[in-house]
């Protein structure tokens, strides 16, 4: 119990004194998660919408696959990305392994199914009356799609925030493809893993509290946004 309490005290100290290393790691965590979230959003919102607005054979199965991928283990994606970007791998010539860039790519791959899948769910949740009325009033397919997306934008925002949450909280992939290099690819989760393995429990707890605080702030912001609706 004392250990946990000391962790709290240390966390407050580290945050209040703006400890440069902690700030740097937190900033990097946010930056990498945000970049991967943007990348996944840019690709998966249009992709999810395409899947939703089109009828094709195997649509249901495809959606099932996407939803199954929500819970794909981070280390599996980590291993895949590692093998692809290792110098001995097919994308090795890009020399990206153990850089923040490859962490962004890996996390984007990791959260892509979540963003795409929840986008589809969001669009499915829109009242059928909306597209029907629009069609009756003479809107073409593209206009109907845009209108539906507009109606679903808050639910789609949830998709993005869920993706962000998974990206910032995962450790397996960050460790495997980033390598937890001090001052370069070390993020909150990998730092926690390292400090715990070094037996530095207090610092681990402190970093964990910062991570939770970040998640909390983002969720509060999202909730307020949705309540305005």
């Amino acid at each position: 119990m004392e250990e946990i309490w000391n962790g709290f005290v240390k966390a407050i100290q580290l945050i209040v004194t703006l400890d440069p290393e902690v700030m740097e790691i937190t900033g990097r965590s946010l930056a990498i998660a945000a970049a991967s979230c943007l990348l996944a959003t840019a690709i998966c919102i249009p992709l999810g919408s395409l899947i939703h607005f089109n009828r094709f054979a195997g649509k249901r199965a495809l959606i099932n696959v996407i939803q199954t991928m929500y819970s794909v283990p981070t280390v599996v994606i980590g291993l895949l990305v590692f093998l692809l970007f290792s110098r001995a791998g097919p994308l090795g010539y890009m020399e990206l392994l153990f850089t923040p860039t490859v962490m962004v790519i890996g996390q984007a791959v990791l959260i892509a199914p979540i963003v795409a899948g929840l986008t589809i769910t969001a669009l499915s949740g829109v009242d059928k009356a909306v597209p029907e009325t629009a069609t009756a009033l003479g809107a073409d397919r593209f206009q109907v799609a845009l209108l539906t997306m507009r109606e679903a934008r808050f639910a789609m925002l949830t998709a993005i925030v869920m993706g962000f949450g998974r990206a910032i909280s995962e450790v397996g992939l960050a460790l495997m493809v980033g390598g937890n290099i001090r001052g370069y690819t070390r993020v909150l989760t990998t730092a926690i893993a390292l400090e715990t393995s070094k037996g530095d429990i207090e610092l681990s707890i402190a970093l964990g509290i910062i991570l939770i605080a970040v998640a909390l702030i983002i969720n509060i912001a999202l909730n307020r946004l949705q309540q305005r609706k």
Partner: protein
Amino acid sequence: MRNKAIICFFSLLVTIVLLLSIFGCTTAQGNEILSARERLRVATTTSLYDTGLWGYLEPIFEKKYNVELDVLYAGSGIALEYGKRGDVDVITVHDKAREQQFVAEGYGIERVLFAYNYFLIVGPANDPAGIKSMKPEDAFKKLADGSAASFISRGDESGTHAKEKALWKSAGFDYEKIRKAGSWYIEGGKGMGSTLLMASEKQGYTISDMGTFLAFKGKLNLVTIVDRGSILLNVYSVIPVNPEKNPKVALNAQKAKDMVSFLTSAEIQKLIGDYGIKTYGTPLFIPCAGKPEPTE
């Protein structure tokens, strides 16, 4: 209003991404954030990292050679694998047999020794298996009985794990049988520090390099049980990855050589020999560059 909120959220994301480039620039001392160049990568065994030795040497090397050093810590097995794949430029490990194989297969240029210490068999202070000060091989024979206490193995193909396997072999056991011998044999699958913490929690025995054990001693309820025997020798070497086998590391070949000269230089050898005295009251490593391989 609502649209504004969404725009706000996205601008926040974009701002954060812009911050990434700033962080990247300040830490990488330049604009090479996207590329692996101008950075030398060393993969090191966890014991040289967990003891803080690399954290201590890293800024000295970076300043001296004006290069950004990336230190990746992993068990010797993974470190050698990184080397084989050309993902790192130089490795520092402690697993003689596999190092020699690594060089013989052409993946490494040469194996250069730079420090050594000893492995220790550590366990609970009351020594439930009664193996205090025995010969390491005899101690393992008693541990294999398994009734007195558990044994925590690294189980991760690290140099320490290789040493443990060698010990079981010289004690006359088949490692595969020991692995499945019962619940007393625990494969942790973690680094040295975590394994020691686990052994302490479970009040079991384990084998550890001296450096990591001393560095973690304050957090452990474990004591040294066996520390004598030539089989416990633990030699660290540095191996530059061979650019002929991996043309991509050629870019950093000179810097990898610099790393070898750095670790074997008189100045750094002295720092390695003194490392730990201030914090732990005793040196963690014995420098041995340029000397014949220690045998006992």
